């Protein structure tokens, strides 16, 4: 897991999902919080063709030391954060033996999907924390807030304190109601005991 003892901090996260699920929005909050709180951060993105409903991912690296590679080596990711279960599973070979998977359990079936139960089973075998992000986002007030639910869920493992401030900043242009929904989505993601689902 992310080591954030006093002397060193290293947290390598792979964000995985389907184009349009808001992975870059989610990661915007983390990157800005890192700048604020004095950490080094690298976030690699996928643009262009790969965005259109295809598989997307971003590598997010946080450390208090110099970070060299924009890509996380295989077997070195501390966390896989999925907004879609099959996409979370796609990056398994990047996870450390101790690493954690936190993912939405809600599949996006825009392809001939593998057996959904098998996907979830394999994730569980790897100790994944599964979260019904659609349900929680709906409870927060908008199904679109799934990405922020997932941000809330992963936040318990991050050393960052200013994430909520950046959620406010991110959505302030869209009005108070949207800010409120997303802050609630964050909290629901944070407090839900996802391992029980």
């Amino acid at each position, binding site marked *: 897991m992310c080591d954030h003892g006093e002397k060193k901090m290293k947290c390598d996260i792979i964000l995985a999902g389907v184009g349009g699920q808001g992975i870059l929005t989610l990661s915007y909050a983390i*990157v800005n919080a890192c700048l604020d709180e004095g950490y080094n951060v690298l976030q*690699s993105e996928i*643009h*262009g063709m790969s965005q*259109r409903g295809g598989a997307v991912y971003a590598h997010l690296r946080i450390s208090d030391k110099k970070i*060299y590679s924009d*890509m996380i080596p*295989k077997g070195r990711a501390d966390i896989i954060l999925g907004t879609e279960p099959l996409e979370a599973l796609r990056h398994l*070979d990047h996870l450390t033996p101790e690493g954690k998977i936190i993912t939405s359990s809600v599949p996006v079936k825009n392809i*001939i999907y593998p057996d959904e139960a098998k996907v979830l089973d394999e994730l569980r075998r790897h100790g994944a924390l599964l979260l019904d992000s659609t349900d929680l986002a709906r409870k927060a007030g908008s199904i679109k807030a799934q990405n922020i639910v997932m941000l809330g869920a992963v936040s318990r493992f991050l050393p960052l304190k200013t994430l909520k401030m950046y959620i406010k900043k991110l959505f302030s242009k869209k009005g108070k109601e949207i800010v409120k929904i997303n802050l609630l989505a964050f909290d629901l993601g944070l407090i839900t005991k996802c391992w029980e689902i």
Partner: protein
Amino acid sequence: MPYPFVYTMQKKKILLGDEAVAQGAIDAGISGSYAYPGTPSTEINEYVRSTEKGKIHCAWSPNEKVAYEEALGHSWAGKRALIAMKHVGLNVAADPFMSSAIAGINGGMVLAVADDPGMHSSQNEQDSRCYADFAKVPCFEPTDQQEAYDFTREAFDLSEKNNIPVMVRLVTRLSHTRTIVAVGAKRKQNSLRPARDNKRWTVLPAYARRMFKEHLAKYDSLQKFSEKRSSLSLRGKRLGVIASGIAYNYLMENAPKDISVLKINFYPLPMKSIEKLAKHVKKLIVIEEGYPFIERQLNRFKIHGKLDGTLPLTGELTPDIVRKAIGMKAHPGRKASSLLKIRPPRLCVGCPHASTYDVINGVKKRFPKLRSFGDIGCYTLGALPPYNAIDTCIDMGASIGMAKGAVDAGVRPVIAVIGDSTFTHSGMTSLLKAAKENTDMTVFILDNDTTAMTGGQETLANDQRLVDIVKGLGVDERHIRVIDPVPTRLKENIAIVQKEIPYKGLSVIIPVRACVTMVKKR
């Protein structure tokens, strides 16, 4: 100036590699930014447009050649200009690039080219360093986003000092990684001072012969500068690594102990440092992203790299590939899942291109021999299921020329499918010739009011303006048909196209409907 630079009034910003290049150019005092969108370079001009509109001329150009020439004129007038494009864009701009290198510049001129090793969003893996060498134009290759900022700033100084255009070579991972970058204060723009020496700006053979000689001498003299921009760390003698650009990051990520390293950030190569390293170590490996470009220039040394299989010749590097190449064991990890299915990109729900392909496939039922020449944009996805409606896609604008060539050879019926932005990029000249010969084919120009694939940049000709251009190129007005590509009009649209296919001459169908994703964004 010794590196790393220290700026007065230093500030920290979160920037993509592309944005760091743009910010570096802005702070170097550009007055013009010229580009055609193309992944992974698009965000360079996007950033200039979002931060400096009104202060810097930064409208999108129709193609990379025009962008380059606009920038060159800007430089001729004494002002600084940035040009940005993806690697294949430089093929389009290669003509002015090669010759302007010899003529030189007036105001500082920097060309940022983003390569796409691994072909995330491209049709090939060409390495722009080869172009820099071809034209003998100096080239920076930043390692990270900070260097992307620093070196772009410095590239303008180098350009003005040596009277030469300078290239900054990026790769996808550098362009599209976001991080914290320290930036300095903005320098003033140049004042207007047009070039006076018309001999130097006119590459007539008699003048060009002399200038080419001078140009080569100038290029070689930059080796000294190259030594300063590389850094040599002589340690253990067992292994020496020459690593350029982001390859250096993948090396250092693995924290190899007791090896000697030469970090390269500039071309022409720092030959003195290379010789020092070669003398110091027993084994020498070159690690570089792209072609074996450095490796080929060092064939007088015994070198390991892409040519002897130490590293792969194709695809992009990763920290894992580099780890293996320097003889380190893989990290313990987990096995990849066997359940995985690929999830390719697709046209968005409600995309007007989807409706156009439904029309084309409807027409194909009546004309099963119909062949379809495609082009570059979101609509290239029509080549994939469920549409399978495209037979070819090679380069920007190729659809119309290839379709015409096939008709010339005797193929019937033939259609070409091209987007509005690609049409103004390099489809218009092909249509001019097809109109002149009244070639027996049907050209679809998909007008979605934007350059969609790269994120929705404004285009130069839509709606009536596009129709007027097609007319102006000489297409018979009776065979220009504008249709509305929506599912509810499928039958009526098929009927219109079915009438044009048997016509023994050139027809142009223009499906007009705004990109659904852009409409949502607005």
